[in-house]
């Protein structure tokens, strides 16, 4: 488990390099590559906020939610409606979206955690579909199938979030905070306990852990980050449609998480990159692009169950003297 000083130094330089590239990336847009890629990376950051929280729940706590699109949707619709119909300053609208997502996450978590395994999965899916149907059918409030459009652009003080260039830095900042926060959580006593509870809930309870409370907290954190992602999306794209609450969206989050590497936090974000990039690429060639995504997913499950991160890690170990790992 312990990491040597060399590894730490490499990791630190690696992080600095990645951060440098991330900061410089928008400068090349339009000249070096189409602005489409800038928007793509922004969407990866937005879904990344949701996915690090999703991985905390699914990967570390072992609770595979099949309804996470509901938190994204609740955040997006709440903020969108407030921006369309009120003069509330947008940070408050953003906050309101996150708070409502948190309330929904607390209630849905409280009720779903009563069940285990497949029943937990089905319950979260059922709750998710409830919110989808509300968004789809409550024409008067949510705009029904058309959703909400023309949500005004916002600015953060003098920093207008009206261009992809500016929004990129906003999304990068929020994503980095979410990721670093989740990294702290999984290394905290709470996070370690979550892993133990995943492996053997009964024993954890008999050691004195209030396991339900830990699970509810994990679900709440995860739902809040889903809400944050939804709120970011609505201020970036200026619209939201019921499709974003559909259960197949929740399925996408599962796909991204396992494709990238469950229980690694950053893996699912890489998974999102693959799914969003190849999804766009393949859908410009063929309508049946989901077939290829499905095949890719099957290949990963068969040959690299630890996902992209599993592949990256096994490459890293191979380069090194295997006997060095034992002592480290």
């Amino acid at each position, binding site marked *: *488990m312990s990491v040597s000083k060399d590894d730490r130094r490499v990791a630190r330089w690696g992080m600095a390099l990645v951060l440098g590239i991330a900061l410089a990336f928008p400068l090349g847009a339009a000249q070096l590559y189409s602005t489409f890629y800038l928007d793509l990376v922004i969407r990866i950051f937005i879904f990344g906020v949701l996915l690090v929280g999703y991985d905390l729940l699914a990967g570390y706590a072992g609770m595979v939610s099949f309804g996470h699109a509901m938190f994204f949707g609740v955040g997006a619709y709440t903020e969108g409606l407030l921006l369309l119909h009120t003069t509330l300053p947008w940070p408050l609208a953003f906050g309101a979206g996150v708070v409502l997502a948190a309330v929904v996450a607390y209630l849905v978590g409280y009720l779903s955690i009563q069940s285990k395994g497949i029943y937990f999965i089905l319950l979260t899916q059922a709750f998710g579909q409830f919110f989808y149907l509300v968004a789809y059918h409550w024409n008067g409030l949510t705009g029904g199938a058309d959703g909400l459009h023309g949500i005004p652009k916002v600015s953060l003080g003098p920093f207008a979030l009206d261009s992809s260039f500016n929004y990129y830095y906003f999304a990068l900042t929020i994503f980095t905070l979410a990721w670093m926060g989740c990294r*702290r959580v999984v290394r*905290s006593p*709470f996070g370690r306990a979550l892993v133990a509870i995943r*492996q053997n809930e009964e024993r*954890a309870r008999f050691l*004195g852990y209030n*396991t339900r409370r830990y699970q509810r907290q994990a679900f709440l954190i995860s739902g809040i980050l889903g809400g944050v992602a939804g709120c970011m999306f609505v201020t970036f794209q200026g619209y939201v449609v019921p499709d974003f609450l559909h259960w197949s969206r929740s399925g996408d989050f599962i796909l991204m998480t396992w494709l990238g590497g469950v229980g690694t936090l950053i893996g699912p974000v890489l998974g999102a990159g693959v799914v969003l990039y190849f999804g766009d690429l393949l859908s410009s060639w063929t309508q049946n692009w989901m077939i290829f995504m499905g095949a890719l997913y099957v290949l990963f499950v068969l040959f690299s169950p630890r996902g992209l991160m599993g592949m990256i890690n096994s490459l890293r170990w191979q380069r090194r003297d295997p006997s060095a790992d034992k002592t480290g």
Partner: protein
Amino acid sequence: MTAEILLETQILTRNFGQLVAVNAVSLRVYRGEKVALIGPNGAGKTTLFNLITNKLAPTSGQVHFKGRDITNLPPHVISQHGLARSFQLNNLFPELSAFENMRIATQARHVRRRSLWLDAEVLSDTADQAQGLLEEIGLAHQAHLNAEVLSYGDQRHLEIGLALATKPDLLLLDEPTSGMSPHETRSTVELIQHIAQRVSVLLIEHDMNVVMSVCDRIVVMHHGQVLAVGSPEEIERNQAVQEAYLGVAQ
């Protein structure tokens, strides 16, 4: 005896349909005692443990621990009060290292156990205690191995170690030597004798050699009821016990 009563069950009963698995059991464990709970298979010994720790809810009766009614408290609260148990079948965190198994157990008593922000590695006292306990149970050299790859005997010791790590006043041990070789049994007996110097023990055990070398009082259960209570010598001489249990066993 003027010692403090640690555990007291009052006419504790549990029915499974028509079957009365535990039938009006009233027993006491005093602080500092090492009590054995023996009886033929199906006598209700493990069910009694499950009632005491509220893994199962009793049909009727009460459980008091350190003078407090704990009958309907959730298991994690009972554990926090200082009543720990081990399990008849190994009940570990299989994919965590032996060290992390133990650290999770010591962390359960740390005031900062709920922190989302601290680094768990910074709680050095939990790590130190975990290391010390691993040395006590003879697993210091296997600390980095996942619990699932430890030998069966080592897993049994870790099973006891996890319960001990919660710093209990009373330790309920459910057949700690089950499935062990004679050699492993001897080392387990030494471990329990060592542990019993600082915690009170209530022990379910089939091996009479273990019972005789560890315990100073024996409770015999049969058909869900307490058949006899007494010192090892008294129980050896007890006619009813011999008929119900020792006679069958020999």
